């Protein structure tokens, strides 16, 4: 049972990592508006930090099981999906330092939302 929960946690982390990786890629492309390109770069950097923080606390996160084909979503949806994945990690099976990754994820979400509101 514990192994299965561990595996579930690992899967959630791997999926969250993959979602953020895709989100960062989309944010780097921006919305095609030159004026907003710089701000999209900042949003992409925020997502990159969330992804790297996740990988730092759980180096196996970029594992192949999470790198399945992702449904094409917007950058905002990808970041929120990543947050949902992390929320699904079974209680007690969170890697140490996950809270820090969540802080960066919250910042990334805020950055992306600001881009959508501007």
């Amino acid at each position, binding site marked *: 049972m514990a192994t299965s929960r561990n595996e579930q946690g690992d899967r959630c982390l791997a999926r969250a990592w993959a979602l953020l*990786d895709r989100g960062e890629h989309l944010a780097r492309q921006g919305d095609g508006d030159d004026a907003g390109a*710089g*701000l999209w*770069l*900042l949003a*992409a*950097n*925020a997502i*990159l*930090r969330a992804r*790297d*923080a996740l*990988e*730092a*606390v759980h*180096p196996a996160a*970029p594992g192949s099981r999470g790198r399945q084909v992702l449904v094409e979503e917007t950058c905002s949806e990808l970041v929120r999906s990543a947050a949902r994945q992390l929320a699904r990690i079974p209680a007690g099976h969170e890697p140490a*330092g996950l809270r*820090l990754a969540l802080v*960066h994820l919250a*910042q990334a979400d805020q950055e992306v939302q*600001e*881009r959508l*509101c*501007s």
Partner: protein
Amino acid sequence: MFVNAPTVAELLHDCSREVRSIMWDITTLNGPELAAAWPAFAAAAGAALSAVPCPDPAARLLASRMAGPRPRPNRWGPPVDADPDPHLVAASTGLAAVAGLLARHAAPPTSAVAARDGDLARRHIVEALVIGAHATSLGLFEHASRLSPARTGTTSQQPGPRLAVAGATLAQSRRLASELDTLQAHGAHYLAEAGVREPRRGAQSLVDPDRLPHVLAAWEVTTMRVLHASPPSVRDLAGVAHAEQALLMHTMVILNAAAQAAVIDIDGFAGQIGPRLADAHLAWGDVAASWPVQMTTASPPALVAVEASAELHQALGEITREGNGWAAATLIAERVHLREVSGQLRDALGAGSVCAARFVELPDELARAGQLRAPARLLGAMDASADRPTSELEGGPRTTDVANRRIVTVLPEQTAGATKTARRLQQAMTALTQALETLRLADGSRSVTDPASSPQAAARQVRLDHRPQPAPLKGHLSVGR
């Protein structure tokens, strides 16, 4: 403006830093020392809060509570036999100076801007109070727990009486801590209400002048550590490159504000600096892309690099951003001392130039050490995109590896593209730093800052000795009055 706002603001920033620094110490909080300093700190905070003109009823009530909850003469309880905590003493001194300044110079506000300044000063005083109360209360609770008798069976029983740590008794500690918790809650409630009342722009108009140089220095040290790690994480390499890209973008915004405010030569900025900043920005992006996410070394990303990047982005964003977009040049000029910040950024770009040089070395170095791994398909695709058809004999990925989606070790000859990209970046950064050194304003040639005295310059000395040192910066970025 009804008071000398920068001076009051600087004093309040110092107070804030002092009270926050109590929590930075890695040693245990010393409750008795904090309690010994508390009455004077509370009195100074109360005096400062009362001295801000036209206090609202909530501020008046809070100021009166700072006198203490008990009857005279010892309204915060009997004196504590300990040396007062130096941070709290320094904060008290600062707040007393704020009270003195306001008492001498402040008058009822005659404009909305002046009223906002008053609100902001009140808010900063209460923030310092809340943090000070929190730290003191925490220290006293810890002290009380040390004085509590051990529970049977949970800790070892030592013979003889338990000796109290010098200072407050158990009851004294608990009571004062409880009173401070109440005051803290009152202060937090005041701040929550103030946050609702206060317009956002007013809150953002003050930027801690010490923050940017320290963040830039920390960034510089962190990047050097990351880039010289053995081996560095590929994620960190891409992260550094993207953060440097962001640094250039913020620099563009800030130097543009400096040019608008005639702090630097506007023609020099438009003709020399702007285009080179744009070139270097693109070049950093290319270098970041040369470290794709599929490529790895044995090292995971370093949290310290993620944190330093977050701090850098935040510190620069406080200056350059407003709401969902960029701040206007006039607002940036209100927030920071443009001459100093321009000098700090000039130094930071000098350090970025050193980073760029390291990026030239890294691809070959890592590949020769056999530390770089990537999917064979990625290497094949990179060769194809570079229009470089290579056979297996020339160092291209093996067909079977590509077909079987193998992860292979990257060979030195396969890093030629990344090295070339980094060389272009190095040239762009060199051109940029040289242009910054020649940027002048028509009416004078005062240097921005002495590079040797800046925190970044000090941090640069931390670098590993065997690494190339940055080209000396001559402080030629000149300013106007």
